[in-house]
């Protein structure tokens, strides 16, 4: 081991003088080092053993052995969401790759920069139905930004450079690099890692069209009821400061999609809350009543605008800034499309506003705020706060928020009611702190997300707000948390139901609860203990706060908090699928 490292070091030192011969796997690892990769998540198998051997002979990259390939991709994805860096996962051929597909599709749906390296059978065996062979490029094609099959080790360095370049530029996304086994062990001359890459077919735009930005400026300055709606693109494009400056400069209301939370501080009154299917009344009503809508890095998806016909039934001017032209005019007609990097475009827009003498009509704006405050007064997120009989799931999230609002912490979530409660009741004031699967809606991401983030941010607390359904989709990762000392805090809102399914069945399927009850649940406390962690069972409302406090105080161990919550609680407000976004159900009569 030591000798190998010394040899490698001397070879590296000599690389300036003459070209060394390296195995494809070694070139791959050099590429990861050159890209500054420090953590990768993976699972070995026959086709990637040379890559694992190359990893063994170095110590700048930490590899985390997960318990299932899906979790490897989720963990690297969570890391990427929290840090903004490219997340890297490594899986073997065949089942290794197919297990990873859910993770890759999850990252693709939310435009997360990732490089996934997969092993492949030897080039001579491709197409022969070899052991653990699958058509990786074909299977992953619809869920990646791009993919490569490296057929020659001499192309390895350039392919890796392209993969990282494509993953992190333009609209980010996952890139798969499929490496046949012979390509990983064949030795070829190594000429160093390319410093730059140029692709005639791939040149993402940055600058927005100046004339279009000026049109947007005129609309915004002349608006009587302006509204800013932003999505994950503002976080991915690192345009948070610019967005905040813009909102404050104009004094206009702002809303975020599920993916955009944290861009503008949630506790600021200019933030109207999340919009969409489980958005606030004020956020959704403002969407339908504004006269100028500025959409930034958001894509008007079905969970956000509901029925597009209903959405389009009112008069308003729409400005849409996005780096991906295909996101513009996809579901709604847009008056001023601006294709460009959101940070660049917002910077230009702010510059123009500062130069201009005009400001939105103060009187009209005041009237608009009055209207918004009227909607806000409905207090649509109210719930039975004083309940002393049963734990309300909202109360758990709210208590957690009050306890941790000054902490350096990350909140991950799975998919379902608990996810919506977390999005509604945890007030995100900073970007990249709310980590969940928005586009694909993948149950089981929460725990691997938290463990991925914890590795990169060991000082920060990682809370995973989950349900008893979602957590069981990747619960094996409790073992990984133990091995790699990544203590996370699992807040399971355990209502013994697949809550969101149950809610739809109650509201849409006349209470026919078809297979939404989770019978025969494990004893999560014992399960946590079996994995070497701390388990806590919380059944009474008065125990919620002390239990969270206890979990917060435990710094070096994973804690599983099993909260037995009200099985009949629903997420309100709700816009049923296919309805307009102001056709909201508000829950019980008194609300």
């Amino acid at each position: 081991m030591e000798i190998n490292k010394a040899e490698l070091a001397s070879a590296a030192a000599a690389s300036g003088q003459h070209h060394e011969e390296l195995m494809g796997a070694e070139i791959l690892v050099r590429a990861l080092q050159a890209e500054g990769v420090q953590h990768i998540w993976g699972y070995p198998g026959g086709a990637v053993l040379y890559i694992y051997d190359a990893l063994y002979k170095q110590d700048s990259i930490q590899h985390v052995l997960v318990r299932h390939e899906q979790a490897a991709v989720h963990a690297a994805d969570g890391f990427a969401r929290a840090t903004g860096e490219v997340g890297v996962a490594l899986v073997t051929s065949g089942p290794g790759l197919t297990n990873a597909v859910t993770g890759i599709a999850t990252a693709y749906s939310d435009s997360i920069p990732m490089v996934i390296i997969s092993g492949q059978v030897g080039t001579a065996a491709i197409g022969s139905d070899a052991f653990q062979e699958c058509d990786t490029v074909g299977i992953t094609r619809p869920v990646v930004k791009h993919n490569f099959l490296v057929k020659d080790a001499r192309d390895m360095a350039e392919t890796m450079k392209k993969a990282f370049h494509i993953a992190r530029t333009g609209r980010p996304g996952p890139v798969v690099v499929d490496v046949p086994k012979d390509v990983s062990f064949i030795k070829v001359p190594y000429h160093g890692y390319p410093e730059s890459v140029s692709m005639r077919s791939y040149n993402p735009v940055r600058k927005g069209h100046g004339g279009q930005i000026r049109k947007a400026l005129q609309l915004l300055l002349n608006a009587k009821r302006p509204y800013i709606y932003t999505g994950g693109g503002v976080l991915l494009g690192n345009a948070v400061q610019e967005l905040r400056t813009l909102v404050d400069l104009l004094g206009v209301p702002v809303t975020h999609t599920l993916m955009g939370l944290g861009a503008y501080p949630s506790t600021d009154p200019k933030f109207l809350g999340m919009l969409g299917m489980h958005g606030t009344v004020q956020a959704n009503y403002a969407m339908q009543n504004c006269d100028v809508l500025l959409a930034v890095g958001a894509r008007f998806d079905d969970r956000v605008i509901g029925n597009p016909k209903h959405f389009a039934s009112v008069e308003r001017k729409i400005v849409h800034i996005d780096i991906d032209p295909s996101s513009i005019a996809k579901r709604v007609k847009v008056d001023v499309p601006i294709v460009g990097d959101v940070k660049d475009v917002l910077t230009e827009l702010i510059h123009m506003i500062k130069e201009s003498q005009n400001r939105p009509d103060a009187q009209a704006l005041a009237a608009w705020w009055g209207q918004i405050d009227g909607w806000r007064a409905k207090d649509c997120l109210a719930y039975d706060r004083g309940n002393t009989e049963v734990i309300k799931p909202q109360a758990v999230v709210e208590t957690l928020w009050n306890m941790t609002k000054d902490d350096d912490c990350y909140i991950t979530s799975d998919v379902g009611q608990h996810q919506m409660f977390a999005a509604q009741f945890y007030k995100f004031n900073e970007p990249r702190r709310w980590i969940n699967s928005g586009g694909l809606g993948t149950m089981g991401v929460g725990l691997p997300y938290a463990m991925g983030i914890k590795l990169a941010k060991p000082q920060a607390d990682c809370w995973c707000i989950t349900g008893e359904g979602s957590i069981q989709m990747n619960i094996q990762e409790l073992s990984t948390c133990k091995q790699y000392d990544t203590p996370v805090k699992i807040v399971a809102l355990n209502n013994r139901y697949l809550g969101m399914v149950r809610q739809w069945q109650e509201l849409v399927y006349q209470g026919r609860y078809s297979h939404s009850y989770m019978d025969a649940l494990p004893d999560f406390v014992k399960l946590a203990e079996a994995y070497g962690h701390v388990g806590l069972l919380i059944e009474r409302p008065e125990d919620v706060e002390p239990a969270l406090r206890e979990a917060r105080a435990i710094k070096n161990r994973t804690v599983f908090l099993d909260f037995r919550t009200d099985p009949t609680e629903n997420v309100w407000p709700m816009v049923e699928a296919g309805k307009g976004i102001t056709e909201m159900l508000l829950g019980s009569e008194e609300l």
Partner: protein
Amino acid sequence: MKHIIAVLIENEAGALSRVVGLFSARAYNIESLTVAPTEDPSLSRMTIQTTGSPEVIEQITKHLNRLIEVVKVVDLTEGGYTERELMLVKVRAVGKEREEMKRMADIFRGRIIDVTEKSYTIELTGDQSKNDAFLEAIDRSAILETVRTGPSGIGRGERILRV
């Protein structure tokens, strides 16, 4: 409405499947597709015939452009263009049909490129409506086999698509 979209794409393994996969994944129509390398062997030129509302066609061109290996995309139907399709038709040609088939091929400026005692193979080039018209003009029951390439399109005059 019919649209003819010309695409310059890197001549790499799997590039064609990305284009075809895009159309099937997003439920776009694909009436025909022709592809072959250009004078620059690193590039392939594709002609895609599709139909859809203006909004759908806009999305098709945007999504084609989004593919990493696609270099350029032009909707030829937005301006002047010409299109040609090659069609080969094998027809029954016995007895007095032989003279009739020969005459029809001449009228449509087709050429007979293979002859047997019982059949002719006729080569026709033209826009699709011309080739359709030929098939309408001859006795349908005489058609033994038809193969059409789908249109290849090129812009008129100064409309040039290249890197």
